């Protein structure tokens, strides 16, 4: 992988000064802002993010449900739910071509051919009334003028590639005749049908059995490597990205809060939220006596325009500035030239008061007498913020918080909210699906 620098044209708002120009990255997202207009008001889903992706590179996007990771990638595909979801600002450059301004038919030509996507739930992502063959063949024939037989041969080849036995007969089957893992293989095969240059996998294993997850990830990794396809892997599970991707973006409330190469991120997690994430999951390599520390509180209400650092209410390291200003994403080493892609990508965080390495290991501030800054407008003595016992912490224990429940992903909830705009409330039988 060659070292790349940010693209020449847009001046990155948060990433600081750009380095020298080596080559144009495959994908370049600049100042992307996505909002949903719903009956309940505007939802601030993605609030100005920047990242690049080089040809053949693998990038993990990690964050809690509702952090905007899925929305970001739907925005890349221009598949935001209409009419609620809108790209308000920013550019998405694929090979220098801005996807945001493309016409519907132009973006359609790119979908599936240049950029393919694998969705979270293989149970619902395949059309239940069409055979696998029909769904695969139509994908191929949507972009290539081939005969049905050729398309079918290609489909068989692809199914073989993803390890589906007896593909000739399985082609005639309907999705419900496959297991979840098999369906996800079909999805992968379908996504790779046209040798896309970028593959976006949105939580591809979340809905699967743990035993299957590894197989699917393995197939995904192998095929992406073999074909040289760039991969964006979206997940809430740091464990998944650890072995799969070269670089990781950590997202929170529609912002990228930390960006680093995978080894760097695990070696030196630097944003309080990243640290929180790492401490809230059990690690197979841990000593065993390490306590899990949950992240207190809940993600912010995205119906409110974000002011200050979005993580501040939950952050143990927050200072007064965190309440009022949003720290942009900047290199940890402020003087270094920012490299956006590749193994030498710059480690960047969005934090006014980054934890130290020791604090990162401990999962809490170790500084003498440090207390998280109280919210503006409250008297300091009132905020005996001790972590547990605070109102927010108690709320966090309520079951409906369910931030980490894979069953109720917040992104889905968000998309649901977007969908509500599309629903006339006087409408009958909305419940007929599911």
């Amino acid at each position: 992988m060659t070292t790349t620098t940010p693209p020449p044209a847009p001046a990155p708002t948060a990433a600081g000064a750009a380095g020298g120009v080596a080559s144009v990255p495959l994908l370049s997202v600049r100042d992307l802002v996505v909002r949903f207009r719903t009956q309940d008001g505007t939802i601030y889903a993605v609030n100005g993010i920047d990242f690049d992706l080089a040809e053949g590179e693998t990038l993990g996007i990690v964050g809690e449900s509702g952090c905007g990771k899925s929305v970001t990638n739907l925005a890349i595909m221009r598949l935001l739910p209409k009419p609620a979801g809108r790209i308000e600002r920013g550019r998405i450059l694929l090979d220098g071509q801005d996807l945001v301004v493309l016409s519907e038919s132009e973006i359609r030509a790119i979908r599936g051919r240049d950029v393919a996507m694998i969705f979270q739930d293989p149970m619902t992502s395949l059309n239940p009334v069409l055979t696998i063959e029909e769904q695969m063949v139509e994908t191929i024939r949507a972009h290539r003028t081939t005969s049905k037989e050729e398309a079918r041969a290609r489909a068989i080849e692809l199914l073989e590639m993803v390890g589906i036995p007896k593909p000739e007969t399985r082609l005639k089957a309907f999705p419900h005749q496959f297991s979840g893992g098999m369906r996800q293989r079909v999805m992968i095969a379908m996504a790779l049908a046209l040798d896309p240059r970028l593959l976006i996998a949105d939580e591809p294993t979340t809905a699967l059995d743990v035993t299957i997850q590894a197989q699917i990830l393995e197939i995904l990794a192998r095929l992406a490597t073999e074909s040289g396809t760039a991969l964006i892997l979206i997940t809430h599970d740091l464990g998944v990205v650890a072995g799969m991707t070269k670089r990781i973006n950590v997202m929170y409330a529609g912002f990228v809060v930390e960006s680093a190469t995978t080894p760097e991120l695990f070696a030196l997690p630097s944003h309080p939220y990243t640290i929180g994430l790492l401490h809230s999951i059990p690690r197979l390599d841990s000593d065993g006596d390490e306590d899990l520390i949950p992240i207190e509180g809940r993600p912010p209400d995205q119906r409110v325009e974000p002011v200050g650092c979005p993580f501040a209410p939950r952050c143990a390291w927050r200072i007064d500035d965190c309440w009022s200003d949003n720290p942009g994403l900047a290199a940890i080493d402020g003087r270094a030239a920012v490299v956006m892609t590749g193994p030498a990508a710059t480690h960047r965080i969005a934090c006014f008061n980054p934890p130290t390495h020791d604090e990162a290991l401990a999962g809490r501030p170790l500084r003498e007498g440090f207390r998280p800054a109280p919210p503006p407008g409250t008297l300091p003595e009132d905020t005996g913020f001790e972590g547990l016992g605070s109102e927010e912490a108690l709320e966090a224990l309520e079951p409906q918080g369910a931030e980490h429940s894979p069953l109720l992903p917040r992104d889905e909830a968000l998309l649901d909210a977007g969908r509500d705009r599309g629903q006339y409330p006087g409408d009958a039988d909305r419940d007929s699906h599911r």
Partner: protein
Amino acid sequence: MIKYIVRRLLGAIPVLFGLSIILFAFIHLLPGDPAATILGQHARPELVDAMRHRLGLDLPLWQQYLNYVGDLLHGDLGRSFVNNRSVVDDFFVRFPGTVELTLAALAFAVGLGIPMGRWAARKPQSFSDGFITVVSLVGVSIPIFVLGLSLQYVFAVQLHILPASGRIDPRLQVPYTTNFLLIDTLLAGRPDAFVDSLRHLVLPAIALGSIPLAIITRITRASVLDVTHEDYVRTARAKGLTEKRVDGRHIMRNAWLPVVTVIGLQVGGLLAGAVITETVFAWNGVGKWVVEAIEAHDYFVIQSSILIFALIFLLVNLVVDIGYAFLNPRIRYS
């Protein structure tokens, strides 16, 4: 699949059996002696007794029931008390009219309801969506006879565009062979009569189809909206399919499922509605027959026609379920 059909058919048997008991009981619970009803109030007692004997009313109840079921199984539905015509014969004269009317109403409801529902779902909460919603609400809220008479008044009486009643202009003198006039006119090689009988169908079909139209519109709209947000539709778009293809192949193929179920349920409503529609439009069908029979307490006709109605309802639901199974591979292959 065949197993499924057979199972469904077998499942209908206890329902029909139960129905026969209920109808039998209903007739026997009705006040008055059918024999006396037939003969009139001042008939001589020996005549009434003879009639009771002829009708088998002097037998014990269980035996009467067995006879009744036996006759049913032999396709003998008895005779009208009023005109003494065979119920089965009358049925074959009346039934085609109801079938034509019901199918026309269904065609109207489906043919207009589905595009309207799709149109409304295209831009939810737009003016056109609101308009369609209001129209469909009013549609389910107007009694059929009010709509029917109003349609007659406007289109037949005031505008003279369409005929007001009947199935065909009798002056055309088309021979009835099948009693399906649309077929009979063609059999007779009379395109003019075919057009005429088609014109006669329009107003009653609209009156009868208005409620199903409203319901199908609403369910189509809801179903399309639901499916539009399904993951596989997103997948289809992500594959770069054209909107037309996404719409036709992915959205509609799935949105059809609840719509088909609802269409099946509408048939029951249509048969019920035919009762009133046929009265309003002097349409010679089963519905009018039933009303006349009930007015005249024509027991066998009531009994048999309700049984036939129920049988049709069950059959249609069976057909719908089978159609549903064909549309939905999840059922077909399990």
